[in-house]
């Protein structure tokens, strides 16, 4: 079956790419290296340059500076049709005047593939997306999820080494989005192509990616595995953008780490091993799910502190508390609902603790 052969993905590299629209800088000195066969998401808030990066790679936009490479080909200056990349668009962009079969066959026809082979490969493609008997439907007669699948099949039918996806799931509802994410992962393993996937949904990025490239203001803020991005953010920006977190200002003096907001002083040696321990101010990130309530008896086992409950937000399996510390800073804590004991009410004062190794120092921008 030709369609399901694993094509070999190619690497993608941005080297110092800049793009400005008048005086708006959409990309500034953007560097990114994606390995062959890898699924990398570009994650960032609106306007951070994700679409611009993808358009520069697809050839819709010319970079003002820098180099773009697919494999070892320099592609800047090549028109989109010469770059041999597949692309799935947020609005699907299925051709409304062609049926499903002809939509999927479109790239093959342009490449002069024989009629017989086109029929075979499109049938395979339709099977892969489980739409075997819908080849004669027009795009207007499909559901959102089906359109998405057809757009996907059309983008990979010519086995491009690189597949680009710009928020392909943004228009789908949550349930469908989650099942499409699983499908995309499965297709990715089967096809072996390199995927650059744009999203502004961090859960999607965490669920899908081999690595996440977090973008901010047209720059690459950090690229790492989902777990490393979550557990060891390299900047305040990444820490605050990925998941919820509490940022605490602290000071290192000799072997002491003072956290005034919690009225605590800990041994510096308790911090995670890899962190810098120079004297001076330091910012620590403490995830809400890493903070827990402690009973009177445990008071010695963990560093602990007092806080007053401001409100509790019910989130299904979790409850999220907003608390106020004695110095007026707010703190967010999430707790699984099955944690025993009565839930604290508004205005109650609770005793909270954490493990010192969950304090993640955020490197200061140098």
């Amino acid at each position, binding site marked *: 079956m030709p369609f399901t052969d694993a094509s070999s993905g190619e690497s993608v590299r941005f080297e110092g790419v800049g793009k400005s629209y008048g005086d708006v800088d959409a990309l500034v000195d953007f560097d990114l290296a994606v390995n062959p066969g890898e699924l990398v998401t570009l994650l960032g808030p609106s306007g951070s340059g994700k679409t611009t990066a993808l358009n520069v790679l697809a*050839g819709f936009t010319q970079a003002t500076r820098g180099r773009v490479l697919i494999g070892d080909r320099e592609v800047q200056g090549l028109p*989109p049709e010469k770059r041999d990349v597949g692309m799935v668009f947020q609005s699907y962009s299925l*051709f409304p005047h062609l049926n499903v079969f002809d939509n999927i066959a479109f790239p093959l026809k342009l*490449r002069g593939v024989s009629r017989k082979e086109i029929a075979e490969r499109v049938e395979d493609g339709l099977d892969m997306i489980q739409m075997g008997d819908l080849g004669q439907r027009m795009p207007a007669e499909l559901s959102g999820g089906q359109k998405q699948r057809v757009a996907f099949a059309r983008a990979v039918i010519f086995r491009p080494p690189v597949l680009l996806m710009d928020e392909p799931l943004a228009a789908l509802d949550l349930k469908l989005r989650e099942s499409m994410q699983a499908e995309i992962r499965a297709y990715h393993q089967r096809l072996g192509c390199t995927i650059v996937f744009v999203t502004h949904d961090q859960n999607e990025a965490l669920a899908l990616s081999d690595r996440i490239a977090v973008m901010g203001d047209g720059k690459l803020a950090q690229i790492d595995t989902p777990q490393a991005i979550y557990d060891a953010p390299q900047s305040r920006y990444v820490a605050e953008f990925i998941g919820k977190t509490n940022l605490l200002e602290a000071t290192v003096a000799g072997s002491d780490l003072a956290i005034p907001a919690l009225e605590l002083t800990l041994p510096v040696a308790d911090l995670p091993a890899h962190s810098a321990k120079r004297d001076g101010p330091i910012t620590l990130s403490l995830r809400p799910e890493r903070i827990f309530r402690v009973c009177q008896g445990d008071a010695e086992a963990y560093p602990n502190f007092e806080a007053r409950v401001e409100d509790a937000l019910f989130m299904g399996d979790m409850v999220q508390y907003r608390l106020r510390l004695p110095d007026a800073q707010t703190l967010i804590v999430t707790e699984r609902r099955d944690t025993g004991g009565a839930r604290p009410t508004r205005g109650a004062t609770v005793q909270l603790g954490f493990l010192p190794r969950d304090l993640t120092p955020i490197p200061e921008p140098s």
Partner: protein
Amino acid sequence: MPRIFRHWMLWPALAMLLVFFLMPSVDILRASVMDPELTFRHFERFLERAVYMRVLWHTVEVSFVVAIVCAVIAYPVAYFIVQSPRRVQFLLLLLIFIPLWMSILIRSYAWMVVLGREGVINSLLMGAGLIETPVRMLFTTPAVYVAMIQILLPIQIVTCYSAMSDIDLGLVRAARVLGASPWEATRRVFIPLSLDGTITGMIIVFMLSMGFFITPALLGGRRDLLLANLIEFNVTQLNWGFAAAIALMLLLAAIVGIVVIRLAARLLLRALNGALAR
């Protein structure tokens, strides 16, 4: 609510159609066969005299040529407008609309001023020493064509423009990244998607041309008269029955013409898609 009341919002429009279109039409149909008693002699006269058939054929020919030339000129113009930045689009459309605000009568007279023996063109050419004696342009067939095309072109441009501005340019980009050169993307995506609107425009231009009579009367020669001129002549002669019969022949020819345009469009679409149409 009884079924018949459900579409009450359409009633005023239906009443208008009934009073101002359907009743006169029936009246004409009746006049063509009931003048003075039940007879087909008006139709027989039309079909038997070569001159009437020649004028009918000439009318159809002129209308087709005008519709096709308008479409060929308007398509790239509309494309150019659609590709311009928003604000420029507005300005260009305004320029296209201005001639539409002038009546056909005035525009036809204006062409007489331009094309006449001592008209603008002849004076310019003679002033420049390019010709010795005035060129005869007024009262010729080309004069009728030029004026009709100029008068009807804005309608075709605007219809094409509105069809094209509905096309999602993302589709053209999608075609490009899937491997289509600019021309392939135009041929396989943009043209097929804009064809319907263009055909609609052609049909409007064709039908309006079929009914033209001021322009050929003012700018054309004897042999440039169209069917509508014959209707007008017979009405003034109070030949109501014969005028009604001509009107019905005109209607019939228009319907046949529209069907032909639609069929041609379908063939063109198939040819454009080439291997794409299975």
